[in-house]
Every structure is written in structure tokens, then in C-alpha cells.
């Protein structure tokens, strides 16, 4: 004891404790390895459970993101429509959602979810914040059928903003818009803006329809023709505005019977 306290065994003690620590380290490391090996299946099971929970959370969040993106899209559309209404306060509007298209591929009509219960009548013009899309063709209590300006039976009296001339805009089975009855002496340029003229009383004046993209002028024709690019994307119609204070003029009583 006295020798130990006197420091005579310090080197032997260091060797002994060092060996002990090394031995314990070796045992500890092996034990942890064996413990990991024995408990790893339980961890995998818990990790799988946790992974499934997280995947569920991710799916839920993705659904929320999609829903929010949809709401953002709808909000943007509605904001555009509100801006349009602010610019044209003289008109009264009724917003309607497009809920279907005509089952026939030869016609271009859409079905909207507002009808006579909401004050919608046959002949009322239908627009979006971008421009004219058509007019109401048939109405029931809670829905209406809208004839688009791209329909082959549609004809809209328009004017060219730069050329200051009037023409007739007709649709087609493929949805292409064509300007007809343009006098030969009128100079039409690509990019000219096409607006409703209001002539005939079918549509209010100065609604934007589209832009001229192509002019066909032949010397032996009486009139020029032009292709118009509509400002509205008719394949992505979601919400539209019906102008409910516009009364279309009915010329039928003035036409003499044969």
C-alpha cells in the first residue's frame, strides 16, 4: 500500500488499466454491434411505419397544393373578370361557370350553370375578361346553352380598329374565325384589332374579338378575307360573364313574309 501510494506501481497500474479499458472498449463495441444486429428488424418495421405515415402526409400535402393551385387559378380568373367589370361599369353582368360542351363535334356551344332563374335570356352576349365569346342560344331554369363565335352558324358584325371598316366575322367547323365582306380597297394589316361594331343589334359595340393574322386578297374576288386569331382561348373556358342588361334587337317582325 505504502509502495503504491508512493508511486512505485504507477507504470504497472497504467499498463493494467489501459488493458482493462481496451478490453472493455472491445467488448462494448462488439455488444453494440450485436445489439444493433438484433434490434435492427424492429427498427426497420418502425421506419417503414414512419415512412408510410410520412408518405400519407406528403400525399395529403400534395392534394392541398393542387387544391390551392386550383383556387389560385380561379382567383386569377375572377380577378380578371372583376377588372373587366370595373372598366365597363355601364353593363350588368352575371358570372357563370362552363359545365359542359356540345356533344356534337360539328357545333361549338358550351353549357353554363346559370339560367332564367338568374335573369339570363336568349340572345344575351357572353364575354370573358379577354373579350367576346358568344351569345346565349337557349335557356332553361338553371342552365343555358351559349353559341360560341367559332360556331359555323355564328356571324358577328365587327369593325377593324385601324382600317375603320366593317366586316362580318364567321366561325367554322374547325373553330377558325374568318373575316368576310371586307371591301377590296381597304388596307388590312396583320395585327389589326377586331372589335364588335354593334351593327344589327346582336352584340354591344367595342367588345374585343381578336387580331388579324392572315389576309387573303385576290383581284378577281369582290371582297377580301382575313383569318382572325381570337383573344379568348376557347379550349380553356372556365368562368364567363353574361351581359344581362343588353337587349338584342329582333328584326324578325320587320322582315316581310313571302
Amino acid at each position, binding site marked *: 500500500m505504502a509502495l503504491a501510494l508512493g508511486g512505485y506501481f504507477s507504470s504497472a497500474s497504467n499498463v493494467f488499466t489501459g488493458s482493462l479499458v481496451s478490453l472493455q472498449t472491445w467488448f462494448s463495441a462488439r455488444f453494440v454491434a450485436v445489439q444493433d444486429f438484433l434490434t435492427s428488424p424492429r427498427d426497420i418495421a418502425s421506419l417503414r411505419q414512419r415512412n408510410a405515415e410520412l408518405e400519407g402526409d406528403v400525399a395529403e400535402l400534395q392534394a392541398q397544393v393542387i387544391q390551392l393551385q386550383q383556387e389560385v387559378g380561379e382567383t386569377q380568373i375572377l380577378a380578371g373578370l372583376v377588372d373587366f367589370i370595373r372598366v365597363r361599369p355601364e353593363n350588368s353582368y352575371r358570372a357563370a361557370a362552363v*359545365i*359542359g*360542351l*356540345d*356533344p*356534337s*363535334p*360539328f*357545333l361549338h*356551344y358550351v*353549357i353554363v350553370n346559370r339560367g332564367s332563374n338568374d335573369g339570363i335570356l336568349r340572345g344575351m352576349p357572353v364575354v370573358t375578361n379577354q373579350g367576346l365569346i358568344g351569345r346565349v*342560344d*337557349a335557356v332553361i331554369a338553371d342552365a343555358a*346553352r351559349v*353559341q360560341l363565335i367559332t*360556331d*359555323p*352558324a355564328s356571324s358577328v358584325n365587327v369593325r377593324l380598329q385601324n382600317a375603320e371598316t366593317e366586316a362580318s366575322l*364567321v366561325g*367554322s*367547323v*374547325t*373553330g377558325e374565325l374568318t373575316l368576310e365582306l371586307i371591301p377590296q380597297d381597304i388596307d388590312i394589316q396583320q395585327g389589326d384589332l377586331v372589335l364588335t361594331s354593334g351593327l344589327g343589334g346582336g352584340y354591344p359595340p367595342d367588345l374585343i374579338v381578336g387580331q388579324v393574322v392572315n389576309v387573303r386578297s385576290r383581284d378577281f374576288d369582290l371582297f377580301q378575307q382575313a383569318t382572325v386569331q381570337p383573344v379568348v382561348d376557347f*379550349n380553356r373556358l372556365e368562368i364567363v360573364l353574361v351581359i344581362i342588361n343588353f337587349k338584342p334587337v329582333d328584326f324578325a317582325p320587320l322582315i316581310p313574309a313571302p
Partner: protein
Amino acid sequence: MRNLIAVPVILLTVILQSAVFSRVYLLSGIADLPLVMLAAWSLQEGVDSTWHWAIATGLLVGFISGISWIVPVAGYLMIVALAYLFQQRVWQAPLLAMFSITFFGTIIVSFMSIAVIRFSGVELPLSDALGLVMLPGVLLNMLIAIPVYTVMRDLARWMYPFQEVE
């Protein structure tokens, strides 16, 4: 009572046509789900009242569509008549009959639509109507023919279980 199944089936078909299938374009053509559904239903063994289905579907489509109701009613009745004709000729190959009825039925309904639209005074170029609307429509109808036939066969077996022939 089993005829009452026509009400939800026809309503669902026309709603799907207007809300979904009319938005899926190939060039300017779209699939005609009511037409394919009627063709598939008409080919099922033991199924009666297909004429009533055709009239009801035609009237509903005519009510929604801007085209005259005569076109879908007469067109769908011709589909059923065609189905009976094919059933007698190629009864051992129902899928062949299904494809044939879909092909010829789409052409018949398309020509009837073109005729009525032109008769009403609308200028409709025949080349565009055939090449950009009718032919893509035929292709789309052929694509949905097999799934629709399968669904209608299961429905027919469910509604007419005792008349099933092995």
C-alpha cells in the same frame, strides 16, 4: 324494373359526354360515348328495350346539343338497327361486331349531322367535316369501344343473370 337502370346509365353517359369526352380533341373530332354505349348495349345477349334506350339517349343528347334532336334520335336508332343486323351476321365475334357498328355508326351519325347543318343554311366544307372531324371521331370511338363494351357486358350480365348463355 330492370329497365329503370337505363335512367342512371343514360344520364351518366350524356353527362360524361358533355363534361369530359367533348373536351378531349383529336384534331377537331371527339369521341361519342352515347353512340358507343348504345352499340355495346345492343350487342348484349338477352337485352331487350334497346330501342327505348336509343330514343331516350337521342332525346337527351338533342336537348343538350345545338343540333336538331332528329339527328341523335334517328342516328342512335340506326345504331341499334345496325347492331341487330350485325348480331345476326357475326354473332360469334361480338368484338368484331362492336368495332364494325362503331365504325359505320359514327360515319352514319356524322353524315346525318353534316346533312342537317348544311340543310339549315350553314356553310360546312365537306373536306374539313370529313377529314378533321369525322375521321378523328371514328378513331376515338374505336379506342373507347373495348372498355365500353366490357362495362356494358358486365352490366348486362348483372341485370340479366338468368339469360346468360355459355
